[in-house]
């Protein structure tokens, strides 16, 4: 019974949906204010969602209906599942075992795969190009992201997020050495969330809506919700690995601190997307492989050295 509550209400589906929409609102409002616009009212993400859900579902005649329908659901479930392994407040995640870091990263890859499959099975030309771009982009940002998160894990000597959080809470000095990794993973996260400058798979001026060109109504609503939650989970992951402060606080304060951390990451992402222009896919690949990946290696080396020569 408790498991069902976890899954559906807190910290599962309902909590994440509300949090995701709140984060989307913050993102959009901040983006608008930075662009000198008024921006949406606070209920806009919810209104958008309700509007989309109440609309008719249109599936292209040539599309594979079951694949077309299942993809948004898959994206949503994968992101929600990933959240259970992230220590949101306190040291311990809801579920935790040695190796959950890998599982979280794997679960966070699934949405991109569903974008690809959803786009591919829509059979529209724009969707297909968007789908191929999404997959191409995956190969570019995934490696730096993985390496930059791997480095702190190496230093903490554990594959469990809860263990990593505990380690850094006990040795706060080491946090400072992971700042480079934090920056790298932040940029990679922009790619994962397909936001400017990495919104190449859905570049509207080139390929209309990219992957989501053919999606509408409930399915698009689910996809959008999935992306919102992915943003939360991704930010929470970064917060857990790179910002391990105040983990010993009492539940309510700890929870508020967690929300603050996630919002901090989200706001940084919005600022980043305000100040950049969209890159081309070849430029994005070059940037990820030639700049981000080597930098992630540097981070890896820093942590390896720290492991051999402890600070104390």
């Amino acid at each position, binding site marked *: 019974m408790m498991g069902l509550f976890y899954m559906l209400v807190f910290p599962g589906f309902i909590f994440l949906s509300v949090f995701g929409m709140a984060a989307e609102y913050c993102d959009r409002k901040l983006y608008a204010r*930075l662009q*000198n616009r008024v921006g949406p009212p606070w209920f806009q993400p919810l209104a958008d969602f309700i509007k989309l859900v109440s609309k008719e579902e249109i599936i292209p005649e040539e599309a594979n209906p079951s694949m077309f329908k299942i993809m948004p659901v898959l994206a949503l479930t994968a992101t929600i599942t990933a959240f259970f392994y992230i220590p949101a407040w306190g040291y311990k995640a809801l579920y935790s075992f040695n190796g959950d870091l890998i599982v979280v990263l794997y679960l966070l890859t699934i949405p991109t795969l569903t974008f690809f499959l959803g786009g591919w099975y829509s059979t529209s*030309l724009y969707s297909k190009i968007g789908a191929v771009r999404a997959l191409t982009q995956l190969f570019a940002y995934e490696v730096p992201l993985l390496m930059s998160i791997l480095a702190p894990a190496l230093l903490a000597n554990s594959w469990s997020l809860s263990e990593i959080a505990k380690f850094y809470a006990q040795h706060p000095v080491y946090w400072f050495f992971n700042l480079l990794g934090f920056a790298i993973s932040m940029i990679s996260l922009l790619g994962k969330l397909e936001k400017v400058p990495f919104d190449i798979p859905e570049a509207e*001026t*080139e390929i209309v809506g990219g992957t989501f060109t053919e999606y509408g109504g409930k399915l698009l609503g689910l996809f959008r919700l999935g992306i919102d939650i992915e943003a939360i989970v991704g930010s929470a992951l970064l917060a857990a690995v790179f910002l391990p402060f105040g983990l010993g606080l009492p539940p309510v304060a700890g929870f508020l601190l967690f929300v603050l951390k996630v919002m901090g990451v989200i706001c940084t992402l919005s600022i980043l997307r305000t*100040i950049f*222009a*969209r890159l*081309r896919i*070849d430029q994005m690949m070059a940037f990820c492989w030639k700049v981000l990946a080597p930098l992630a290696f540097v981070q890896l080396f820093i942590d390896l050295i720290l492991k051999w020569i402890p600070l104390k």
Partner: protein
Amino acid sequence: MHKVVIPIGPQHPALKEPESFSVTLSGEKIMKFSARLGYNHRGIEKACEERTYVQDVYLTERICGICSHSHSTCFTQAVEEIAKVDVPKRALYIRTLVGELERIHSHLLWLGVAGHEVGFDTLLMYTWRDREVVMDILAMLTGNRVNYGINMIGGVRRDVSAEQAKAILKAMDTLEERTKYYIQVATQETTLIQRLSGVGILSHKDALKLGAVGPTARASGVNRDVRRDDPYAAYSEVKFKVITDDHNDVYGRTLVRMGELLESYSIIRQIVKKMPEGPIITKVPRKIPAGEATSRYEAPRGEDMHYVKANGTEKPERVKVRAPTLANIQTVAKMLEDRQLADLPIVIAAIDPCFSCTDRLTGIRQTGKRKKNVLKWEELHTYSITFYKEHGIDFTDLNKKMAKALK
């Protein structure tokens, strides 16, 4: 690799006006590009032949929403040349003033659109906010934000007061400061430069061969500007530089347009300072003597050309319009050779296309073979009135009331 042909348009988010392009892709690379123009064809040249000269001034103004002043000035210049009218100096200055204000609003608009095409929406929001400054000035001077309606054969219809001149100068200071900031953004912002430089290359030789005009040509090092080469209005009396650039790419076109913005501010300052006193319009007979004239005008997008032939009546025998985009659109295929799909929107946008200028002429749609569905225009008119009557919208009473009130 597998080849796909994707349609861009007639309706597409990257195009603000309907026009159809077809792009053959191999992966992300563009193999072939072809354009089908004509979607905005409205028959203006033919319509001009059936209207009087005064009506045509307003009709040519509606060839394009952005460079409306360009077309009407170009047309009135041709007619004035045939009729051998001496246009008052002050009128020429006011035409130049509005023309330059139009260039400012057009270039700022372009900068925003370019930002949007490369996914840099912040630039769009900022430039369009500043564009409001010049739009307000235009509204103050002419009464309209677009389609100013200030030109008339023989002069202009509205004078510029001293307070208005002061407001213009103040706006120029604001805009100059903002433009300098945008130049800084464009020359220093890395992602923007990456998306613009090296994209849409048009060599100097190709620009000459394909007959490119305006900023597109000047960014390929073609030193050509009608304002200097074939001065009209008050351009022979003001000092300005013709901005050229040898980057040959979209980045160069951006720099040229921003440089021209700064030049426009300086031209406007000179115009306001030097503007002579006097009448703003002379009387021109309704019937224009037979003759012909070719008129050129440097519109924001490049050289605009009108040819007018008069036959001694009140209606022109022939009006020919060649809008700048028609000359530039042919360079796009060259610019897109071996480029990426992602470059397509910005390359097309970089010539600042204006398809309603380009496709200005079409006849009326011919009736099909389905006789049953054919309605005469009057029948359609009656049909629409009865249709709305049945749906509760009836103007009969209102018409009667209005008629009574008039008596």
